[in-house]
């Protein structure tokens, strides 16, 4: 019997090698099809794995694969081991499913680019590492994937490496992630210290008995792991790299910086939820970080005018929802939102890509408008995605966001403030996303006549994936319907990985009221956007004029980047130059044992005398040393 895990994992790698060997010669089309076929194959294998899991009784849903012993040393061992359980099954389906669609889409989007073969190689490599991340059966294999996706993200952000800003952004992403990784690694060392292993099954199985609930060490581990997650999943304080990451090609933004890689932190926390349950403090921190991030990012998204930046901040904000869900203990809701978000956010990015593609690279929304007529499929699918993200019944986002808001209110870790944050965020979400839709597809067209004449809908290879994702944005939430017994298939499926469903305290009436409120919020937001950007064009600008300082503060993203630059980056640069020029060359070199200064003298002398001098110096030293030794040894008697 074929090993499905190996198949899921190695098909993308196979695609990569085929392209590495033949892609350069056989050209763009070949490379695109090979890469897409590899990911599609991986998707089929992931489906196979899913079906295999379903066929097993719930508590036995676990497939394992150990390739070899990776780091075996006395008393500590890490395997190159993988496992497929319900949680990783959902992740593999999302990664390969959305991934395959984005691969197909890329064939159209990247058509004609010089580096397209390299692009597909990177993309396959990314999918491979992402699958390693979610399939690893221990923290270290997860970390391999974790760093690997970071590397691919670096390579793909800087894909157009001729652009200075793209390279800056790539480096920024990598270094900010490294700061998160720094904490993550220390967290791992603490886990090794406590458990002596990094194996998920052992660590999570033994955690409740080994760690004291609420102990400092439990909190330390969780906070460190979570700090790693804030890097990868772009949460406060490490979120600033994600908006800049939009320098990469748009399908990359869709795949890496919306649907998959940035959710790695959410996945990791969900995977280690047993540890987090042991630390109420850490849970609280997680929830607060999520809530604040979702508010801050949503507010920035309200005023950005670059279409991709709006979506980038929207992504940060939606990731904030997932983190909030984790913090209030609603792990399956977090993964649910992760999945639906992958559908509609990938769709939004690809729709934006379709717009950018047809406008020859224009990303400024103020220069767009009225594109509805020329780009009907793009406009239609994007609107569906916008309705989904805004949380309109019965689209996907409605169910997942509702699940999070409900838990934020009712969970033992939750509270009214968390709900309020989520609700306020939902209002802003609806406003910014429909601002984007209205400014791009409706109203007066601000393009030059010349560009207007050349407007065209994207080719089928790009619009078909859009339509597929639109279908998923509509129906993707129907697997997690609350209230009706047995209709929350999603939560039921994940239960073996994420603990039992929080059954029991679902009060039907209360839940219906909550759903009504969140739907009302979404509709209100859409109405506000309609009033400000359609009915009364310039309505938004009027508010900006009324509170200019607030507007500038938000427009400049609360000056967080500038603060980082001023407080950390510039000082480090200054210190390193200082250390080198003044300290290393000036002080250490000339004063350590006085030797350095001596050397300079000798050097000057030697330039005149050439060799010979060194020899005599060496002999002098040896003689001196021998004298000391003789003295010492005679003293010993």
């Amino acid at each position, binding site marked *: 019997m074929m090993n499905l895990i190996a198949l899921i994992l190695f098909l993308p790698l196979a695609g990569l090698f085929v392209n590495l060997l033949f892609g350069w010669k056989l050209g763009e089309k070949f490379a695109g099809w090979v890469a897409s076929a590899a990911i599609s194959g991986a998707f089929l294998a992931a489906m196979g794995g899913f079906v295999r899991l379903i066929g097993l009784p719930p508590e036995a849903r676990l497939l394992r694969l150990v390739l*070899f*012993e*990776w*780091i*075996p*040393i*006395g008393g500590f061992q890490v395997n*190159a081991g993988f496992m497929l359980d319900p949680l990783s099954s959902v992740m593999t389906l999302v990664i390969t499913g959305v991934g395959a669609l984005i691969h197909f889409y890329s064939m159209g989007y990247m058509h004609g680019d010089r580096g397209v073969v390299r692009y597909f190689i990177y993309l396959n490599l990314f999918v491979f590492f992402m699958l390693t991340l979610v399939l690893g059966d221990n923290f*270290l294999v997860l*970390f*391999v994937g*974790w*760093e*690997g996706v970071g*590397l691919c993200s*670096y390579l793909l952000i*800087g894909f157009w490496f*001729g652009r*200075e800003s793209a*390279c800056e952004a790539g*480096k920024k992403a*990598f*270094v900010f992630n*490294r*700061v998160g990784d*720094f904490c993550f*690694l*220390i967290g791992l*060392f*603490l886990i*090794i*210290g406590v458990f002596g292993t990094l194996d998920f099954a052992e660590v999570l199985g033994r955690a409740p008995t080994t760690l004291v609930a609420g102990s400092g*060490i439990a909190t330390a581990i969780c906070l460190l792991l979570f700090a790693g997650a804030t890097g990868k999943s772009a949460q406060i304080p490490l979120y600033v790299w994600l908006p800049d990451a939009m320098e990469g090609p748009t399908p990359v933004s869709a795949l890496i910086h919306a649907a998959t890689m940035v959710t790695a932190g959410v996945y990791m926390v969900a995977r280690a939820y047993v540890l987090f349950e042991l630390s109420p403090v850490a849970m609280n921190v997680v929830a607060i970080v999520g809530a604040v991030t979702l508010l801050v990012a949503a507010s920035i998204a309200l005023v950005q005018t670059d279409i991709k930046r709006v979506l980038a901040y929207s992504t940060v904000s939606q990731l904030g929802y997932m983190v909030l869900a984790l913090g209030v203990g609603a792990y399956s809701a977090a993964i649910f939102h992760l999945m639906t978000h992958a559908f509609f956010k990938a769709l939004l990015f690809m729709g934006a890509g379709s717009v950018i593609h047809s406008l020859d690279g224009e990303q400024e929304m103020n220069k767009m408008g009225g594109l509805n007529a020329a780009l009907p499929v793009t406009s239609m699918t994007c609107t569906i995605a916008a309705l989904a993200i805004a949380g309109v019944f019965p689209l996907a986002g409605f169910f997942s966001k509702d699940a999070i808001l409900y838990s934020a209110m009712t969970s033992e870790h939750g509270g009214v403030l968390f709900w309020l944050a989520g609700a306020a965020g939902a209002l802003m979400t609806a406003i910014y996303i429909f601002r984007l839709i209205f400014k791009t597809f409706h109203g007066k067209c601000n393009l030059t006549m010349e560009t207007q004449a050349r407007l065209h809908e994207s080719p089928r290879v790009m619009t078909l994936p859009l339509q597929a994702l639109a279908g998923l944005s509509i129906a993707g939430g129907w697997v997690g319907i609350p209230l009706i017994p047995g209709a929350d298939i999603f939560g039921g499926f994940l239960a073996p990985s994420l603990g039992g469903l929080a059954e029991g305290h679902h009060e039907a009436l209360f839940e219906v009221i909550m759903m009504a409120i969140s739907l009302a919020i979404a509709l209100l937001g859409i109405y506000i956007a309609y009033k400000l950007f359609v009915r009364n064009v310039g309505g938004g600008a009027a508010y900006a004029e009324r509170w200019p300082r607030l507007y500038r503060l938000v427009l400049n993203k609360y000056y967080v980047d500038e603060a980082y630059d001023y407080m950390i980056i510039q000082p*480090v*640069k200054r*210190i*390193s*130059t200082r*250390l*080198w*020029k003044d300290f*290393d060359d000036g002080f*250490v070199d000339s004063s*350590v044992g006085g*030797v*350095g200064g*001596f*050397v300079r003298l*000798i*050097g000057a002398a*030697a330039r005149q005398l050439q060799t010979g001098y*060194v020899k005599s110096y*060496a002999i002098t*030293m040896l003689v001196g*040393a021998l004298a*000391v*030794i003789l003295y*010492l*040894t005679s003293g*010993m008697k």
Partner: protein
Amino acid sequence: MDNVMGFPLLTVITFLPLLGAVIVMLFFDREKTGAIKGFATAVAVVDFILSIPLWTKFDTAKAGFQFVEKVSWIPTIGVGYHVAVDGISVLLVLLTTITMIVGVVCSFTAITDREKEYYVCLLLMATGMLGTFVAIDIFLFYVFFEITLVPMYFLIGIWGGPRKLYAAIKFFLYTLFGSVLMLLGILALYFVNLKMGTGTLTFDLQQLYAVGPKIPMSLQAWIFLAFFIGFAIKVPMFPFHTWLPDAHVEAPTAGSVILAGILLKMGTYGFVRFVLPLLPQASQAFVPFMMLLSIIGIIYGALVAMAQTDVKKLVAYSSVSHLGFVMLGVFALNQQGVLGGQLQMINHGISTGALFLLVGIVYERRHTRMISDFGGLAKQVPVYSTIFAITMLSSIGLPGLNGFVGEFLILIGAFKASYVYAAFAVIGIVLGAAYMLWLFQRMFFGNLDNPENQRLTDCNRREVLYMLPLVVLMFWIGLYPRPFLARMEASVGKVVKMVNVAKAEQDTKSAHLKKKLRPAPKRNIF
């Protein structure tokens, strides 16, 4: 003698390059440079082939010495010709033989002046380095340790860059100063053994191992300091590192590769081979001091690397940082730390050696090493860029490549010793990513706007060929380090045990003492 087939393998491996050097010196016409290059390459390759049994026939279960050869040399003062390898040294010997091939082959076009003498120096260098790693007699070790100084001095001083004389003399004096102090330490051990140990005159390490722990702490501390200066200059540890950037920048490519790949390892190897097992109490006592210097080295080296404008100098300072990691692992004094340190010695030899080779390749074409002279190379030289990228990622410890496994083990070890040390050391990882990526960005990304760079040619077949084994090793150790770890594990275990025996005694003593004074409950952070 329990060497393979009664064949003095280690002696042959060690002295074959010397023989080669003599033959070149005596029988080769200095004009026939092609023949000299071919012969030198052949010697290096044969030497490597001869060293393969050290990998295949090595008994991984055995902690003690293997391939032993022992004859008396100067019996009146107890000097013996005693060579052998164990898990501590076997991989270093192999790394040396591989590096020698690379060092010879990479010089074919880089060196055009006094070639005969050049290859003689390289081959002499090989004998010195190999001898240092296989010598079990501490006097013999010292002789080889010193022998390496001379050819390296000439390599830098004759075939080096503009400030070669200054750099060569600085290198020579620093190292000589250190090794003279080390000689004091060696002699002290020798006489102490005469008085308190076996009562015989011997430099044999296996006999000295027994007397080490018996030396009173007051004297051990002094011997420790003598060895410390000797090895710390070689490593180099902060603040003895300033000779390194000068030596690296001025040395020809092969010189830098050998310097980084092998010569620096003599220092770290010295700590593991001599200091830890011979001076266990002092090693324990100096842990905080050593850890502090290591951490300073890690962070300081990385920060100063960030400010560099010359690629080669940047790589040199990154060495200071990486060797700080090695020392951190070694002085964690536990299995994971020392094992990680040992593996990282190999890793650093591979990755940093490769980086120097890459710098050399581009220097040969452009005659500049200033970072600002480059930019946008990724477009012009894709193969070179790819190899550079992989090497860079290996150097910053990306999982899946060799650097990660070593750093990871070191940090586990350091963490066990103290989480404060480990936490500081991890900062080095963040900074490492920063300076390397910044370097890569400035050299390879951006626009190819310098017309000089537009004529740059990509790696030729010879260059790819000598880079390839290093790249393969990066992946091999990163993905499947088991064969490497297995070879070192038993011997490292032995060293760790030796350095901790004394501590165990001390602990029980002080525990008794504490119990008498006041019953202090043992605290455990976990």
